[in-house]
Structure formats: structure tokens, C-alpha cells
């Protein structure tokens, strides 16, 4: 009995963590290239809305995922354009993005579905149990009997670990974020790399958003993400911009959420806010403890201007 509870708790943790981890991996790529986008919320919302819309119209899950990716990448590229081409303040640009997409997605949603009384819904993706792996006691069910998005997430973590630390592309990405001028001198096209990194951020953030509508909820509503994009930023910092670290951070945050839901169903008297607050408190504490170690990419948030010293 205890094991069943533990196993379902772990499974819930993974489901809570997956969208956050996907978006956070995207933001990690972007930040490593020196572009800090606090508009992850907008990217996720866009991915969530467009994948829902495509699923509702076509009923084809591949089309829906593709639409979510396009939606996320579109949002991210607006930010990239403002930060790279216009050299705007990246924080303000991210904030503007959040407002724009919060408005846009709920406007489009109400425009299409506002007149119906029933909440439009789509069928959610079913979990696929991996043979053998899902039979591992306790963690097998939780980790390997999930929906395909979760497997994509595992794959992304592994791919990014290799990409960041074992390939020349990883070195180029780091160089652009740490020392853009040196990278430029070495013949690397700084802006091209940054645009690509931003696109990757949009793709992964869009996937994270699509997860919410296609897997978790099956419907869309105004401000569906409700701050998940900001939590993704938390995961990036807690995970020290290391793909595995980011995944673990997202799992920790996810477990706080899963615990909160579990306690609510048990009728606990502790307000649920006490648990939702935890990841933020932990982030501030971790930031304080890791002070002075200088983990941020040196050129994070700074525009690169070729013609200036």
C-alpha cells in the first residue's frame, strides 16, 4: 500500500516537473548564449494555446505538437529580435512579451470559443509504458510509464549534456555567452548563434506549453500557465544551467507541487501556499549561498555591438 502511494506520488512529481523542465532546458540554452529571456511564460502560453488550437481543429497530435513548437519559437524570436537587432533591455522585452502573449492567447481563445457554454476540450495523450524499464519497482512506474513528452525530456537532457560539454558546438555556444568579442574574432557569427539559441528556447518552451494542454489538462483557459514560466527560470538557476541539474531542480519543484496536492486531498490544515512558496524561498537561499562563484555567463543580458569597444 505504502509503495503504491509512493509510486503514484513520484509519478505525479514527474508530471508536474516535465513542462517546467522542458521550458527550463530551453532557457538554459538561451542564457548560455547570453540572452536572458524572462518571457518564458509567454513562450509556454503560446505553445499551450497553439497546440490546443491545432489539436482541436485537426485532431492530429503531431500537427498539434508542431503548432505548439511554432508558437513557442515565434514568441521567442520576437524577444530575440528586440534583444539582438534592437539591443533593447532584455528584461523589459521579456516582460512586454509576457503581456502581449497573455493578452493574445486569451483574446484568440475567447474569440473562437467564447460563445460556447461548454468548455472545449481535446483528448489527452495516453501514457506509454516502456517494456522492462517500467517494471523496475517504485521508480519504474513513475519514470517509464509516462507520456511521450517525458521521454522526449529524458532524451533532451542526455542530448544537451553531450551537446554542451562534448561537442564543438557547445564550446561555441558558451563562447558566445561568455566572451562574444573573442568569439567574433575567432570567426563565430555571434548573432547567428544567439538567434539559434533563442529558437531552441522557443521550441523547448513551446513543447513545455504544449505538454500542459495536450497531456495534462486537455483544455485551454486564460493565463493557463499561471507562473510556470517563472518557475522555469527558478529551475535554470537552481540547476546551475546544467541539463541534469535543471532536470533535478524541476523534479524537486514538481515534488513540492505534488506534495501540496496530496496534502490538500488529505485535508491538511497547513495552507497549500506554504508549499507553493518553497521553491521560491529555496531559490533565493541557493542564490545567496552560491554568492561570489560567478556562475552566470559573463555576457548574460548584454547586447553585442560589433562596432563598439
Amino acid at each position, binding site marked *: 500500500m505504502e509503495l503504491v502511494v509512493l509510486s503514484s506520488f513520484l509519478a505525479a512529481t514527474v508530471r508536474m516537473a516535465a513542462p517546467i523542465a522542458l521550458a527550463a532546458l530551453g532557457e538554459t540554452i538561451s542564457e548560455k548564449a547570453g540572452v*536572458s529571456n*524572462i518571457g518564458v511564460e509567454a513562450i509556454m502560453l503560446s505553445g499551450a494555446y497553439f497546440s490546443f488550437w491545432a489539436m482541436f481543429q485537426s485532431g492530429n497530435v503531431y500537427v498539434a505538437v508542431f503548432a505548439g513548437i511554432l508558437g513557442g519559437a515565434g514568441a521567442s524570436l*520576437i524577444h530575440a*529580435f*528586440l534583444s539582438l*537587432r*534592437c*539591443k*533593447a*533591455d532584455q*528584461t*523589459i*522585452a521579456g*516582460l*512586454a*512579451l*509576457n*503581456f*502581449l*502573449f*497573455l*493578452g*493574445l492567447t*486569451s*483574446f484568440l481563445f*475567447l*474569440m473562437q470559443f*467564447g460563445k460556447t457554454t461548454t468548455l472545449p476540450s481535446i483528448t489527452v495523450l495516453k501514457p506509454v509504458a516502456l517494456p522492462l524499464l517500467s517494471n523496475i519497482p517504485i521508480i519504474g512506474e513513475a519514470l517509464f510509464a509516462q507520456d511521450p513528452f517525458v521521454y522526449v525530456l529524458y532524451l533532451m537532457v542526455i542530448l544537451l549534456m553531450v551537446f554542451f560539454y562534448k561537442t564543438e558546438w557547445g564550446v561555441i555556444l558558451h563562447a558566445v555567452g561568455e566572451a562574444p568579442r573573442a568569439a567574433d574574432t575567432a570567426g563565430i557569427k555571434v548573432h547567428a548563434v544567439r538567434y539559434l539559441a533563442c529558437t531552441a528556447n522557443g521550441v523547448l518552451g513551446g513543447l513545455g506549453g504544449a505538454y500542459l494542454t495536450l497531456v495534462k489538462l486537455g483544455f485551454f483557459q*486564460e493565463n493557463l500557465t499561471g*507562473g510556470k514560466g*517563472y518557475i522555469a*527560470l*527558478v529551475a535554470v*538557476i537552481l540547476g546551475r544551467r546544467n541539463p541534469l541539474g535543471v532536470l533535478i531542480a524541476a523534479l524537486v519543484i514538481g515534488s513540492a507541487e505534488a506534495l501540496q496536492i496530496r496534502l490538500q486531498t488529505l485535508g491538511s490544515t497547513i*495552507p*497549500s*501556499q*506554504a508549499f*507553493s*512558496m518553497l521553491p*521560491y*524561498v529555496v*531559490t*533565493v537561499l541557493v*542564490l*545567496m549561498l552560491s*554568492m*561570489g562563484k560567478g556562475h*552566470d555567463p559573463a555576457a548574460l543580458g548584454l547586447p553585442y555591438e560589433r562596432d563598439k569597444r
Partner: protein
Amino acid sequence: MKRTILSFAVMIIVILLVSFLLIAMVGSDIPTSLASFFRGIGGSTYAMAEVLVRATPLMLAALGVSVGFRTGFLNIGAEGQLYLGAISITWLGMTFPSLPAPLMLVLSLVLGFLSGGLWALIPGLLKAKFGLSEVINTIMLNYIAINLVGILVRTSLKDPTYPYPMSPMLPASTNFLHLLSPTRLHAGLLLALVCAALVYLLMFRTTLGFCMRAVGLNARACQCSGIAVSKYVIISSLISGGLSGLAGVSEIAGLHHRLIEGISPSYGYLAIIVSLLGRNNPVGIVFASLGIAALQVGSMSMQRSSGVPTSIASIIMGLVVIMILSRKSLFRCKEA
């Protein structure tokens, strides 16, 4: 100069076209929708007062944000600081309900300023002393503050006679003066205008303000010429958060008279847009907050009478900021 005028003209045209397009997309009639928009912000005394009521917290919080921005302290945490101010006046009213009104007013303002200020001081200190990014820290503290309100209205500040999570009605001594009776206008607006004047004097007429602006313009040059950069960042974060704290006090004392969840529909984030539109200048902020408030109140009226979703306001705000950020580069403006 020509390009500047051209760029603003293009911006206005784009915004009008996009709004017309959005209105047409939901199948509403453009003239009727616009008429209801303007009726919503200027059609009656009540409508005009509603705009002022909404502009009040925006003005206070944006003034705070602008002080931070001028010093290079990117305060995204006005939302949390506002909630801290709201918590402080609720605590004060519940703990000392029998204080005389004048004393209560002074205490609630001082306490609200301090609690908002101290909330902003955390990221301020972390930035000044350890070089930690204030952006992430202020966002984190927003969420902590919002959850804190959620916890408090369910536990120590809860009204035991109600099943809902909210504080009891605060004593009348905490209430701000009502200005124009049938409307909801309250003295918070006067507080905001006084603060605007004070911020102007502080930033442009005192040595402290000069040093703060200098730090914002070029921290390294200040360091080299013997201005203690970290000191001014800390002071600026304190003032910045304090003003947002006052916004929270004003919302409770003027409007809600009790602490509930969600008293701020993103005022703290909107304040950043207001501050940007007002070019971090107190006079500009007064007008920008009126503009953003009018946009929101008008769009609510438009939703009621023509069925255009209020999210149109959010789209337009996002679009305006994006165009402002890209304007100089797209039109090759050479102005400073």
C-alpha cells in the same frame, strides 16, 4: 527629428489598426465599440473616477520602479512590495484597532513604506554587496509575498467569522478619506501625487538624487570618482520598494478595507510599463499611469457593451512596449 515624429506617427497608426482589426475579429462593430470605450473612461463622473482609482496604485508603484531604474536597480518586484504594504496596514489595523485616526494614518504610511522597502532591500543588498541579479530575486520575492498573503489570510490574519480566506474589516480609522462620494475615488490619489512631487524633488533637486542617477548612468565611473555605488543602490531599493508598499497601503485603506488575495491584478508588473512609458520621470509617470488605467477601464467597458475581451488591453500594452523598444533601431533615430 523628422524620423522621431515619423516613428511615433507610425506607432500610433499601427496601434489603431491592430485594435480595429482585433475588434473586427470578434465581430463587433468598430464605431460602437470605440464609443463604449470612451464612454467607459469619460462618459460620467463615475467613469472618470474609476480611471483615477485604477491609476493610483499604478502611479505609486511606477514611481517606485522609476527610482530603482534611475539607479540601475531593475525592480521587477513591485508586485510583492505592494502586497507587503497591504499586509502591514492589515496587521496594524487588527493589532491596534483603537488608535486615533491621525496617528493610524501616519503609522500605516510609515509602516507600509518600511515593509515594502525592506522587502526590496533584500534584493537591493544582494545586488549591492554580492552582485546578484536583482531581476530573478525580485521575481522570486513576488511569489513569496503572494503566497505569504495566501497563508496569512488563512491563518493569523483570517476573519474567524467568515469561511472565506480574508481578513476582518479593518477599523474605520485606517480608511483613507473618500473624495467624491458616489464614486470610489479616495485620498490615495492625493498621496500618489504628493509622492510624485517628492520623487521629483528627490531625484532632480538633491545631491542624493544626483548621485543615484549618476550610479544608474555609469556605475563604474561613479566607483572611480569615489561615489559609494553600493550605498546608493541600497538606498534606491529601499525607496523603490517603499513607494510600492504605499501602493498596497492605499489599495487597502482606500478601496478594499480588508486584506484579500489578488488585490493587485498585476499592478506591480504594469508599473514597470508605466515607468517605461513615463520615461522614469515623475510627471511622465502621472500621465502614463492615467493612460494605462484609462486603457484598462475603457476596455472593460468595451467588453461589457460590445463583447470585445478585455485582453485587448494587455495585447496593446505589450505591443506598445515592443514598438518603443524597437523604434530607434527600426527608424534609425539618432536622438539620445
